[in-house]
């Protein structure tokens, strides 16, 4: 089976066939102690070279004995900020993800300066990071289209 991602709130195909594997992986975490993680994702990383927001998140997680912080990424593994930060700089806008009660288990909104422009499937991976179930290329097109139309 080939991994397939989707966008615009149509991430359910990915989520459904991925579901059993993900649930098994999550269940396997049950016996772990709080904050325990066999991997140190920063073992070979120069923390001073990371963006300030990333370092702050690492420190916040450490202060609460959470598993090591891992930033959100798109379906293909691309770190979300690597796509979003250049768009924010180019258009001088703030891009974020948000959801309200009615649909938080389904799609979240992609927002530009607080205004929703698209929907995106989202899930928490067993590794503890958020996955936006769209490709970075599709995401960038959606944002550019919304800003060009705006």
């Amino acid at each position: 089976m080939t991994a397939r991602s989707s966008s615009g709130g149509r991430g359910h195909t990915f989520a459904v066939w991925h579901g059993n594997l993900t649930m098994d992986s999550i269940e396997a975490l049950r016996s772990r102690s709080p904050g325990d993680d066999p991997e140190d994702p920063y073992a070979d990383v120069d923390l001073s070279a990371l963006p300030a927001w990333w370092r702050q998140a690492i420190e916040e997680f450490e202060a609460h004995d959470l598993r090591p912080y891992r930033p959100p990424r798109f379906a293909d593994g691309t770190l979300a900020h690597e796509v979003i930060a250049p768009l924010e700089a180019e258009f001088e806008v703030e891009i974020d993800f948000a959801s309200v009660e009615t649909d938080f288990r389904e799609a979240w909104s992609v927002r530009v300066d607080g205004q929703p422009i698209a929907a995106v499937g989202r899930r928490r991976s067993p590794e503890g990071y958020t996955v936006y179930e769209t490709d970075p290329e599709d995401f960038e097109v959606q944002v550019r289209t919304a800003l060009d139309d705006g």
Partner: protein
Amino acid sequence: MAERHKVAAESELEPGDRAFVQIDGIEVAVFNVEGEYHAMANYCVHQGGPLCEGNLTGRYGMADDGWSWTYDVTEKNVVCPWHGWKFDVTTGENIDDDRYVTPTYEVEVDDGEVFVRR
């Protein structure tokens, strides 16, 4: 200095509702508990599950007589959907073991909009 981030309109957050926003790489949930807003990180201290997406419940306790049960009907305890760990959304504390506390944040309401400081 924590910056202010818009979460949702007040009209979208009735008592019992919640809203989420990703702020600088961290997901934060805002709960409306009986008209008061409380913000907490959407990460379970146990294994990083999406804590704030779980069900909200009240809480059983022991009565003063040490014999009978009580039940606080205020639905302010969120149950992590991964492994059932429960946290009080008003304090961030695990209700079974106060050694475990997930990050909490200040909430502000301004002109009908709900903001989180982080």
